[in-house]
């Protein structure tokens, strides 16, 4: 009895090839086999990814030779041919995330790039498979140590997935080899969602840019490794996975993290987190001009607008609104790290002071300038490192419940909302042609009803708001303020989830 061979679209395609082309394919898969020394199931899936990509090229009229050249197994390097032995301690900023996470709360953020045509999942999968080796500390899984969590290397297939959950949904990091990030696609959008233990916005943006560049290369557009796009065939630099907090500590002065409780916006908290994401797209030049006319920076202007929006989103007449503004420490210290390396400045105003945008802007600008001063940042960094060192001998099973309670009281209650501005992201010209815009979404925390984030690419500034309540006052006031500045605003986002 002859053995039944399961036919697939790929095997049907191979049958259509000439002998020479089949020999070429055989040689290709032999080389691939040498690069894949991982578990049988992962290997089967990775081989399937290569087959799917070859099939995609065939369907799109790309000659087999060109397809095999673009998909060369040499692009895998030795990543899948060596066992997973690396591990990394968490950086000083990341240590709090696994300590404070709960079944309802996880620090996840998201970066997306909108391309000029719909994403081909087969190529995006290959782009991720080729890119991950350059970011070895992303190919990890979180583990419990006796005193601290750490991230342990995980050699596995990292799948791209179609979007099917709310943006910034929790990532299941509990299983053996679980990943701490996900790559998603929807229409022309590629999104990366990261658990904050891995990286901050800057590191995440470099990953997204490198992934997108590799995707474009697979589509036939070579993108040079410049302007934050890493050469994925280069060797990872130890400085990229370094904890630069401990390296940059100097002086004795340190500041604490305790602040007065902030008032929170009104509106019932949703069970689904976030319950909506809203993007305001506007012309970056016009926004910059509006800020310059008022003698402020874009961050100060948007922060000031957020104060007005917070006032519109609460019925309270008294109290202090605190806005947390993350600060990129790479602007202060020479650093190549792609891990977390940011702290924050806190800007606060009493509700009674918030009469109009122009009235509060000078005060917001002053506080921001003071808050991001080098000495202040240095003191905060010293404080963070000192705190980590002071509890290093406390076992994890004691730290975890204590951190959850402390973070709940001091972390979430200390601010009303957040504005994280990644600033202007530069792209290589070859890539900029294909990227229409980008967006950046912060995951919501326990109490803050809105978390804002911003990024500017190709002249489009995108302000994103992740919501935790159905009350629309915040975003409606924001829209009105942007229009009052004379800006043309395009609003997009998600439907309201969970209601």
């Amino acid at each position, binding site marked *: 009895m002859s053995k039944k061979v399961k036919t697939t679209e790929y095997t049907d395609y191979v049958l259509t090839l000439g002998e020479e082309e089949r020999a070429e394919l055989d040689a290709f898969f032999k080389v691939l086999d040498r690069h894949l020394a991982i*578990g049988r199931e992962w290997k089967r899936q990775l081989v399937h990814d290569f087959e799917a990509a070859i099939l995609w090229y065939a369907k799109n009229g790309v000659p087999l030779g060109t397809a095999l050249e673009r998909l060369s197994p040499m692009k895998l390097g030795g990543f899948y041919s060596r066992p997973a*032995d690396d*591990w990394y*301690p968490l950086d000083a900023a990341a240590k709090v995330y*696994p300590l404070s*996470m*709960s*079944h*309802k709360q996880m620090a996840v953020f998201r970066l997306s790039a909108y391309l000029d045509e719909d994403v081909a999942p087969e190529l995006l999968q290959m782009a991720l498979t080729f890119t991950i080796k350059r970011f070895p500390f992303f190919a990890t*899984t*979180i*583990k*419990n*140590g*006796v*005193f*601290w*969590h*750490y991230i*342990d290397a995980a050699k596995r297939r990292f799948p791209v997935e*179609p*979007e*099917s*959950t*709310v*943006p910034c*949904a929790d990532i299941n*990091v*509990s*299983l*053996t*080899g679980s990943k701490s990030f996900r790559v998603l696609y*929807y229409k022309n*959008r590629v999104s990366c969602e990261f658990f904050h233990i891995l990286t901050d916005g800057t590191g995440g943006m470099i990953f997204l840019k490198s992934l997108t560049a590799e995707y474009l290369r697979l589509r036939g557009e070579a993108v040079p490794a410049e302007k934050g796009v890493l050469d994925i065939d280069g060797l990872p630099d130890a400085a990229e996975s370094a*904890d630069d907090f401990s390296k940059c500590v100097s002086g004795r002065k340190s500041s604490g993290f305790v602040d007065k409780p902030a008032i929170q916006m009104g509106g019932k908290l949703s*069970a*689904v987190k976030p319950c909506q*994401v*809203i*993007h305001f797209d506007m012309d970056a030049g016009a926004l910059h001009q509006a800020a310059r006319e008022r003698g402020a920076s874009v961050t100060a202007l948007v922060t000031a607008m957020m104060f007005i929006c917070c006032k519109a989103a609460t019925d309270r007449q008294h109290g202090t609104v605190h806005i947390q503004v993350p600060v990129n420490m790479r602007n202060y210290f020479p650093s190549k790290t792609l891990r977390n390396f940011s702290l924050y400045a806190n800007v606060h105003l009493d509700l009674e002071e918030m009469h109009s945008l122009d009235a509060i802007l000078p005060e917001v600008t002053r506080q921001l300038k003071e808050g991001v001063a080098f000495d202040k940042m240095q003191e905060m960094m010293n404080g963070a490192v000192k705190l980590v060192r002071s509890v*290093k*001998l406390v076992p994890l099973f004691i730290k975890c419940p204590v951190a959850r309670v402390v973070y709940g009281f001091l972390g979430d209650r200390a601010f009303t909302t957040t504005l994280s501005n990644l600033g202007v992201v530069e792209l290589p010209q070859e890539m900029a042609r294909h990227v229409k815009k980008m967006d950046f979404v912060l995951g919501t925390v326990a109490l803050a009803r809105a978390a804002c984030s911003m990024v500017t690419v190709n002249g489009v500034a995108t302000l994103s708001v992740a919501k935790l309540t159905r009350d629309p006052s915040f*975003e*409606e006031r924001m*829209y009105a303020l942007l229009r009052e500045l004379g800006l043309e605003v*395009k*609003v*997009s*986002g*998600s*439907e309201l*989830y*969970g209601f």
Partner: protein
Amino acid sequence: MDFEIVYPKIKKQSLAMLRLRYIVGLIFLAASAACVIVNLAVGGKAWSVIALWGMYMVWTLVLRQPLVERNLISQGVRLAVMTGILLVLIDRLLYPGWAAFVVPIVSYAALIVLAILFFVNVSKQRHNVMPLIILTVLVIVGSTIAMFVFSETRWPMIVLAVTAAVLLIATVFILKTRLISELVKRFHLR
């Protein structure tokens, strides 16, 4: 404000587990208070401690599973340790005299099952070895102490301690230097 939807329809997020956890949490809290009050009011044996421990077991093993490192070995170790404690509590507080036999049998069974899980797929399970090592060490120390406490029924403890020691030696032999690097990671202070 014109609004364009640029996200797909999502799978309805299951909030069932969150709700179940909340409801069962409330029931357990009420039941715990009721057990303690009734036990104190009626007097007699401290059966409420066993009831409380049983509810805690269901809560940790079923409803509030760990967020990091949830795998068959770690869950198996948790189940084994908690069951052992439950049996000791029943023996001490309600019906004494059998734990010296039963606890070693249960621990022995747990060790064998976990050892099979580990040795069947060492390349994957080596990442989960730490709970197994902790259990074997606990068993060796526990049975050695128990040998002196229950001097009349020593043999179950001897069998258990020897099994645990063999398992520990086999694990060390198989993992060799990897075990040392595993310990370095687990005990790091950075």
